[in-house]
């Protein structure tokens, strides 16, 4: 099977293809998105239903890509703008927010981390949709317009990918310009990042190796489960605007090659027929920062927020948060919350056996004692049960990973244990 699809190599190429503009006046187009957002700017390029749309704001030029499914209406040449400050995205939910430095016109950006590396990185445990959803209000209160998802994870649970992708697509993209900044995105982490159109790498970045397998046996997923994973990633590839062939070469052992046209655009082939072999047969694809950039998958390479802003074409930006030791980016309120979440998960994961052991042994001893002597043991069991409950409250996925049940099933069990303690007392 040969899958062909073109992709823009870089913003630079798009700029070369576009109509020349002046700062004071340029062709003005208006795009109404399906979520009601009205965006004014200049259509730079159109391809296969996608549009590359340039928005000027406060002297800053940003380019965003909209998929056909996002677009309700396109109005062309609705009137030249004399003042670029009138060119803004209409997003009522953000316009009303107070912005400390908004007067400068510089966009406000924040970094939040998905996965913390070094053992605190499993998708589904440390990188969850729920933990990100909780910080959206803080990001909005802080007037964040550009949200950088810095990803550092070696992968994890398949089930969390769709939740994270839905969150990015349906809850983050309508509110923010979402950017993925890849420290390390392996397996489920890469599959999540694939939702994002704008991907940048750190120099050390790696992205791919998305083969699904059962951890205990080392057996690859097959048959229906595999087909569902492949189909899921086709849909997520569409969200991010990526050729299906790329992710397929990351999921299963198929070759991938690519050719460039005279405009620098890439055509992908799921065989060896392209001019450049990206993934030979017998291997599963993982990009590094060089290969990702070379084939236009990554829009740039940046090792700190200044380099990232430059790669994103931002001449001015306000990074929300404070610089702290041990972090290569400013820590916003939202990020602090994410860090707290991961610390709690790590503590719970480390102490899980102790919680369970304390609960079980305390309860067992209580059952062997006369009723009047049970109090201290039952208190101990109750305390351990609360710790287990707090663990699941912080991260509902513990219910599945630890107790093999969904959240409802866990809380049902929890109430039964509470009742048992009450009866013993």
């Amino acid at each position: 099977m040969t899958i062909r699809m073109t992709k823009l190599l870089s913003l630079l190429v798009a700029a070369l293809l576009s109509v020349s503009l002046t700062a004071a006046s340029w062709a003005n187009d208006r795009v109404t998105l399906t979520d009601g957002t009205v965006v004014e700017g200049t259509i730079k390029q159109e391809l296969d239903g996608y549009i590359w749309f340039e928005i000027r704001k406060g002297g800053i030029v940003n380019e965003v890509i909209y998929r056909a499914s996002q677009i309700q209406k396109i109005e062309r040449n609705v009137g030249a703008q004399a003042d670029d400050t009138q060119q803004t995205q209409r997003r009522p939910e953000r316009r009303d927010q107070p912005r400390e430095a908004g007067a400068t016109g510089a966009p406000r950006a924040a970094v939040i981390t998905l996965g913390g590396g070094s053992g605190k990185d499993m998708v589904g445990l440390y990188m969850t949709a729920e933990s990100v959803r909780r910080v959206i209000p803080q990001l909005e209160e802080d007037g964040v317009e550009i949200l950088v998802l810095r990803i550092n994870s070696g992968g994890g649970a398949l089930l969390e990918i769709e939740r994270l992708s839905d969150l990015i697509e349906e809850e983050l993209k309508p509110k923010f310009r979402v950017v993925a900044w890849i420290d390390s995105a392996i397996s489920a982490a890469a599959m999540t990042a694939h939702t994002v159109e704008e991907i940048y790498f750190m120099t050390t970045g790696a992205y791919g190796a998305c083969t699904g397998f059962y951890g205990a046996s080392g057996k690859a997923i097959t048959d229906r489960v595999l087909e569902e994973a492949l189909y899921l990633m086709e849909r997520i590839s569409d969200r991010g605007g990526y050729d299906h062939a790329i992710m397929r070469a990351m999921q299963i052992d198929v070759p991938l090659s690519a050719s460039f046209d005279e405009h620098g655009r890439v055509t992908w082939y799921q065989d060896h027929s392209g001019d450049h072999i990206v993934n030979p047969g017998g291997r599963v694809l993982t990009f590094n920062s060089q290969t990702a950039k070379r084939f236009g998958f990554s829009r740039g390479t940046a090792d700190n927020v200044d380099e990232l802003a430059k790669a994103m074409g931002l001449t001015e930006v306000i990074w929300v948060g404070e610089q702290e030791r041990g972090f290569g980016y400013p820590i916003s309120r939202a990020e602090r919350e994410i860090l707290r979440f991961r610390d709690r998960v790590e503590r719970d994961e480390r102490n899980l056996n102790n919680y369970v052991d304390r609960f079980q042994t305390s309860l067992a001893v209580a059952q062997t004692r006369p009723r009047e002597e049970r109090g201290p043991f039952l208190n101990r069991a109750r305390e351990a049960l609360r710790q287990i409950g707090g663990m699941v409250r912080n991260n509902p996925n513990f219910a599945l990973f630890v107790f093999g049940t969904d959240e409802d099933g866990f809380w049902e069990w929890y109430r039964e244990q509470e009742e048992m303690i009450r009866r013993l007392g």
Partner: protein
Amino acid sequence: MKTEQKKRRWLGSGLLRGAVASLVIGAAVLTGVPVVSQQASAAVMLSTPDQIILRDGRVINGEILEETDTQIKMRISVAGIRTEMTYNKSEVLSVKRGEGAGQAQQAQDRRPDRVDARRADRGADAARVYVAEFKGHFGRDMAATPMREALEDAARQRADVLVITLDLRSYFAFIQEQRREQGQDEGHFSEMQMTDDILQLLRVDMQQIFDTPPRVVFWVKQALGGSCFLPLTSREIYFHPSGRMGGVGNLDLLFGGMDEVVRQKLISANIEIAKGIAIAGGYPPEIIEAMAMRRQVWSYRLEGGRPVFRQGWPDAGRGEILLTDDGRGENADTIEQIVRGEGNDTLTMTADLALTLGISRGTVRTLEDLLLELGVGRNFTRVDDRAERIVAGWSRDLVNAERRLRQLFREFQEIQVQGDYNERTRARGRQIRTLEEIQRLVRRFDGSINPFLGVPPVEEIQRIIERIRLEQMADRR
């Protein structure tokens, strides 16, 4: 500053720190002709020294002793101290024979009083050099804690140049020693995961630990196993003549028992993560494949002094040289080759090969040679008084802690909970205190503790403590 007064301070002969290399005095001139005596060579040197200009802008005057397709060996001298240096041709912009005479003569003509005057002037400009030498086994004698402490100390001392010397065998070699196993230490890629915290220190935390991050230089005496990835974080790697770097060549043999596509996934992820380390350091990612994959064949050729890598057997017609073979059958390295680091199933770089491949900037036998190479010359101040206490002290403390752990666990096992209620209570109290001390020690040394001590992990110890507390609650007078 009091501590500085105690430090060895060498003030060079009035040479500017940054420009020292451009003023060094050369040695003999007759390329390829062995120099018989220093006197004779000095006499010739003064009339016609050679000069090479490096790509980083340094100008080296001296005597070209030997020139091959890939390297130039020179004898250089600073204020009468001679040393031999080897330069990779890929680093050399131009070679001028006999054209440094003017500068050399000028340097020789300097009057001592003028030199002394400059020395006094340069005192404040002396480079502050911090040397931290890690010796032993990676993961044991080099861990994140002593590295962080060394970095923090270097920051307190306002070091301009941080030299990290590695003389480390793999963690696997330590495990083999503990098991009293004899085997071939052919490479252990999985040790890469032990580098996470140290890489974080070198790549990220460094920026916050130092107000102005120093120039970081790795000097490789031996960097085997996981430690071989660490020098790649710096753009300045130097080798000792007997230096070796590698010992991670078994990635493609890992993950046995898994489906092939799963194996390929894990290999792909690991190799590209490792390549990222090389890319960030400015090194060709191909060396990672050659270092890690035992069944891959790699060749290289030199173009303009720079290596161009290709996967496959060499094509002699294109001037290609075999880097690694497939390690199969008669191509498999012998024990003798492995022990001497001369095998080619996977890439373990020697000093010469590292220089040829552009990984090493030079081969130096002594620290003084290294500092000359760095352009620091003699005008530097060592500010690493505490380094030995931090780095070697960590190793000593680790060994002492392990001895103490064995003793504590033995004591715990010997505590008898018996007698009356008060005696039983006291005995349990002693048990808990002993176990908590074990936990403190294990936590302090974290992953570096010998796994064969027979002491349970921290979490298990916590469970034992919980049970003792429960027993105490259940006990009655």
